[in-house]
């Protein structure tokens, strides 16, 4: 693990969500992984000018990009946090992944030295794999036996 960290620069992480969902999600991930660095949470609130939020995001991207780029995770495709994040794509080395959940965030935080595009692809896979209808799997196992 440590060899990897030294070999490549770590990707910065920004969690953009409706209200403080991102803060809580980060807390949950830290309970499992331990304290994390170079992560920022941006909450989108009613009553705050969206231009201000975009300005904040832009500043966070600049602060967190140490050469490896920044991955922005947002809570819901189509929502304001996502729309604001997407408006910053193309200007800097940024990847936006929507529908953040705990398995996705943990995957990102624990494998941050990967190339940005690979990290984003793996984050998507982890997020989807984390969604399980237990009954379906158990029924399949029983049927397969």
């Amino acid at each position: 693990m440590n060899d990897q960290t030294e070999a490549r620069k770590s990707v910065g992480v920004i969690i953009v969500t409706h209200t403080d969902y991102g803060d809580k999600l980060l807390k949950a991930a830290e309970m499992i992984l331990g304290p994390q660095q170079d992560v920022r949470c941006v909450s989108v609130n009613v009553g705050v000018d969206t231009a201000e939020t975009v300005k904040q995001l832009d500043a966070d991207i600049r602060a967190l990009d140490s050469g490896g780029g920044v991955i922005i995770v947002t809570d819901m495709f189509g929502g304001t946090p996502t729309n604001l994040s997407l408006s910053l794509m193309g200007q800097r080395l940024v990847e936006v992944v929507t529908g953040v959940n705990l398995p996705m965030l943990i995957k990102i935080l624990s494998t941050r030295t990967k190339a940005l595009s690979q990290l984003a692809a793996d984050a998507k896979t982890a997020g989807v794999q984390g969604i399980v209808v237990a009954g379906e799997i158990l029924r399949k196992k029983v049927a397969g036996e």
Partner: protein
Amino acid sequence: MFWVRIDNRLVHGQVIESWLPFTDARYMVVANDELAQDELRQQIMSIAIPLGIDFSFVKVAEVQTYLDSRRLMERDVLVLFASCPDARRAFEAGLDFRKLNLGNLHYGPGKRQVCQHIALSKEDETCLDFLRGKGVNLDYRCIPSDPVDLPG
């Protein structure tokens, strides 16, 4: 790495996301008498275990026999117990570990809270004293980035 841990919750997020990568384990042995006989709970727990990790549910007294039968001891194995008495029983039944990681041991009536994530009953302390007396080093970490020793 051969890694032995006590964790009330057995397989859960911290074990899967932090200890499996930290130990580089490829085999996980869940040593618990109740689970070893409960296929439904085994199946539910196994859904959470990542692909590529070989795992097994065995009775506490049979851990060493199981490891021997598969020649696993010298490979990357993570053994999980739910309690201190279970760890002691396995040791007495021949499981040769020199280090024991104490993770989540929840508070209950009559237990002494020794740090944020560990509360010990009299019986737990007796078991740990026994193991310490046999030369087992105790490692009090909930997750790998925690300090190894108890505060104070």
